[in-house]
């Protein structure tokens, strides 16, 4: 299971982005997850909660957008969405195709943040989990 190390990378990336925005508090992290990313969604959600503990992102939510695999079908000359990753064939004509257009994503795409009120500024480890 490598979802824990993926979760740590997500937290690192999100913290970096939050810091660039003046250390804003992160309420949610939006992630795009491809069906071919090799990452299991449930395991990642579970790991994320554990990995957030004790970090400024503690209490934040991981919102995952599933991305299906899109292939190029040479016969239809069009992009088609796979119905299952057990079979790389065009859902319209049945042609097998190895040409993956997308579906490997493991991407941070958005953060739900709020600026912190400087008058109530506390240490990074302490404000974690405080609702807005």
């Amino acid at each position: 299971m490598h979802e824990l190390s993926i979760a740590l990378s997500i937290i690192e990336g999100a913290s970096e982005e939050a810091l660039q925005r003046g250390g804003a508090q992160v309420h949610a992290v939006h992630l795009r997850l491809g069906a071919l990313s090799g990452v299991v969604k449930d395991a990642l959600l579970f790991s994320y909660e554990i990995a957030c503990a004790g970090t400024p992102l503690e209490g934040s939510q991981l919102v995952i957008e599933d991305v299906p695999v899109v292939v190029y079908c040479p016969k239809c000359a069009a992009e088609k969405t796979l119905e299952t990753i057990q079979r790389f064939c065009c859902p319209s004509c049945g042609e097998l195709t190895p040409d993956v257009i997308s579906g490997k994503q493991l991407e941070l795409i958005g953060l739900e943040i709020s600026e912190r009120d400087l008058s109530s500024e506390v240490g990074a480890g302490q404000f974690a989990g405080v609702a807005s």
Partner: protein
Amino acid sequence: MSTQPRLVEVRQNVLKQNDLLARSLRSRFEAAGVFVLSLVSSPGAGKTTLLEKTLTRLRSEGNRVAALVGDLATENDAARLARSEAPVKQIITGTVCHLDADMVERSLAEWNLSDLDCLFIENVGNLVCPSSYDLGENLRVVLMSVTEGEDKPLKYPTIFNSADVALITKMDLAEAVEFDLAEARRNIQAVRPGMEMIELSAKTGVGLDEFLKLLQLHRDNTAAIA
């Protein structure tokens, strides 16, 4: 106290550090003229045995070869591979279930890449996690042994899809386990249409020539592109 949450757009590849490092490794391999092949499979599919035979053969034919081998806990695999007399380094990953580009880079620190023609990287036996990590290799080879069943590719489509070549190993046991070769080949093609496939037995040597020929072909192609 904080203001109302707002959604800001970001765009960041979660594995960007690994991917950047893998890219820089690939450039280093190319500059040094070394061809890099990685092996992935479930535990016990025969990576180490195949590698032992491959290293021995390539060395006897005058190739400068070396291997990095990932394992959770032991150095047994490195000891087995060392019998080929090729330079071998064990990467003990501890609790980590896969190799990443950083582990590969650190393990290569003491080696001069331009002294090598071919570098083999044996990943930790695992059909899930290694699929997410680019190691900078030129060719990724996935092994499935006949004792694992014909449907392995359908159970782990991501790793089969991420690989370039599939090897069906332990063919000497195929009859004993009533292995349906045609079905296995169909399943591989379903998850990676057009994938190159070789049936082999490292024990009897069947398919080894074909594997080495394919390796040479990919080496030539990589060199031609470089």
